[in-house]
């Protein structure tokens, strides 16, 4: 359980996130949504204890963070940043094994190898285990790094745009796996997403940020109203529904008169 109590985060004197309160529940996937530059990544990094919060506090169970995170705060988190570069001569298996950094000896035993390979199998890239990570495509690398964060045994899982380099199929399998593992391990999962429709399908709760403030927090069907999305993103939208009842957000092209110039 993560509690945010009127959290404010400043960077370089500027307020990025202000007066944010929310309860994030274990076993739930929470998606953070919002336009570019609205503090989604900043919020995630603050949760991870990488950025100080200027007022308010964040609680993870009994641990309390105010201004500075207490020691061992990060031990309870898995954090996957947006950056998925890895120009290093390590095999995919070695990269995933690093997820268990605290427990590694000079000899890696079969138990850890098996665990790592199971993560690769779950993410569907077991066949890449022996390849160098630098030789993979961006999407494959992102899956490998996701397998790496799965190796940690966190209480909370923080993912910053984990689908940015993935095709449709892999976006779905990553999020599906995230939902399953979140339920199974009772993680409190927080994921920054850009695709509202994916968020509506996979997240239990949506937290919409706009201008550094919480615009809405709740179940997808309640949060994703045409008014809210139009206001937050500044584009007119229609909300449709798919056959399963999930909201589908359709941006509406402004109906202006267009002039077609004759080819001259």
């Amino acid at each position: 359980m993560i509690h945010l109590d009127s959290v404010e985060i400043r960077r370089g004197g500027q307020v990025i996130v202000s007066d944010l309160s929310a309860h994030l529940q274990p076993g739930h996937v929470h998606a953070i949504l919002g336009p570019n530059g609205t503090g989604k990544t900043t919020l995630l990094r603050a949760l991870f204890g990488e950025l100080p919060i200027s007022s308010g506090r964040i609680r993870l169970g009994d641990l309390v963070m105010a201004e500075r995170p207490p020691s061992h705060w990060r031990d309870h988190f898995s954090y996957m940043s947006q950056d998925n570069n890895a120009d290093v001569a390590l095999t995919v298996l070695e990269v995933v094994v690093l997820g268990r950094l605290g427990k590694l000896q000079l000899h890696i035993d079969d138990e850890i190898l098996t665990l790592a390979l199971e993560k690769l199998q779950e993410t569907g890239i077991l066949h890449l285990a022996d390849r160098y990570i630098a030789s993979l495509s961006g999407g494959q690398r992102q899956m490998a790094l996701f397998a790496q964060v799965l190796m940690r045994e966190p209480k909370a899982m923080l993912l910053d745009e984990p689908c940015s380099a993935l095709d449709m199929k892999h976006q779905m399998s990553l999020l599906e796996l995230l939902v399953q593992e979140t339920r199974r391990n009772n993680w409190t999962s927080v994921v920054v997403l850009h695709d509202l429709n994916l968020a509506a399908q996979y997240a239990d709760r949506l937290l919409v940020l706009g201008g550094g403030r919480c615009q809405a927090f709740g179940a997808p069907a309640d949060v994703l109203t045409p008014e809210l999305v139009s206001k937050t993103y500044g584009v007119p939208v229609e909300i449709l529904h798919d056959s399963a009842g999930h909201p589908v957000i359709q941006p509406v092209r402004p109906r202006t008169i267009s002039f077609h110039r004759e080819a001259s």
Partner: protein
Amino acid sequence: MLTPSAIGTAIAAHRIRERRRWHAIFLFLLIALVSFVLDVATGPSMLSPAAVVSSIFRIGDSDAMTDAIVMSLRLPMALMALVVGAALGAGGAQMQTLLNNPMASPYTLGMAAAAGFGAALSLYFGGFGLEPMISVPLGAFIFSMLAAAFLFALSAMRRVSGETIILGGIALLFLFQSLLSLLQFLSSPELAQQILFWLFGSLTKTTWPTLAITAGVTFVSCLILLGYSWKLAALRMGEARAASLGVNVSRLRIEVLAVVAIMTATATSFVGVIGFIGLVAPHIARMVVGEDQRFYLPMSLLAGAVMLSAASVLSKSIVPGALFPVGIITAIVGVPFLLWLIFARKRSL
């Protein structure tokens, strides 16, 4: 769905990869041994490798003359070549890991130039009343550590990236090189000659005590570095990701930099400036065994040892009877080798 057989196959593949790396390390160990024997055998009076082996291990009947040449002259030098090469190779490897930059080495970060300046200063002031045998290496060591302290201070600052540290190191390199030139300009021709001779790294200054100190420091440092294997591998994934895997990045940087600085400063103090080994050996290791630090560190160490030992053989055999400073050889051979490595890497990616 889990298929245990696929996982079993993947584990086997990983174990095979590990075994291949062990073989590569063993091969380099053999090459180092061969080079070492040749190094002892080469010199104004050529010895046969068999005579060298029998003299070192005191087997069969060897004559007193051979024993004297081997034990008091050539053996410490040949061992020093291995030890210094190992220290520079391992040191360069960890600097490259630490700063996430393939151009990092004790030489490019200005530590070698600082050592040169320290040695020159000590020569210029007549050793401050100490024996030159002690005062010159001491001066080199102190200044090398001062340069390292500057790099520590940089890396301890928040929000200073590996790249900034590299730039700071290059600034140091220029600073100490110009100070050195100034000192050479102010010196008498004889003194300038002495300074110049120190700057050409050379193994001829080796004695058993300096060998023992260098070997001891290098051994302990490498053991400590081996303990940091996984953290360093995580660091190569990027500082942010290492932090997210539970590494205290600034602490790791300072601790490893301290170990590397002491190890390479010790080696440089006794033999002078030897460039390119710290830069090139890690590249060889990366190509052969990858960057799993459990193999990368020993391999960089061995590659460095082989390179300096081979350079030592070369330095004695280009003109029979004459001995070139080994630092000149490593620089001349090192540059084309480095270029080749860079272009070979580009092609493979």
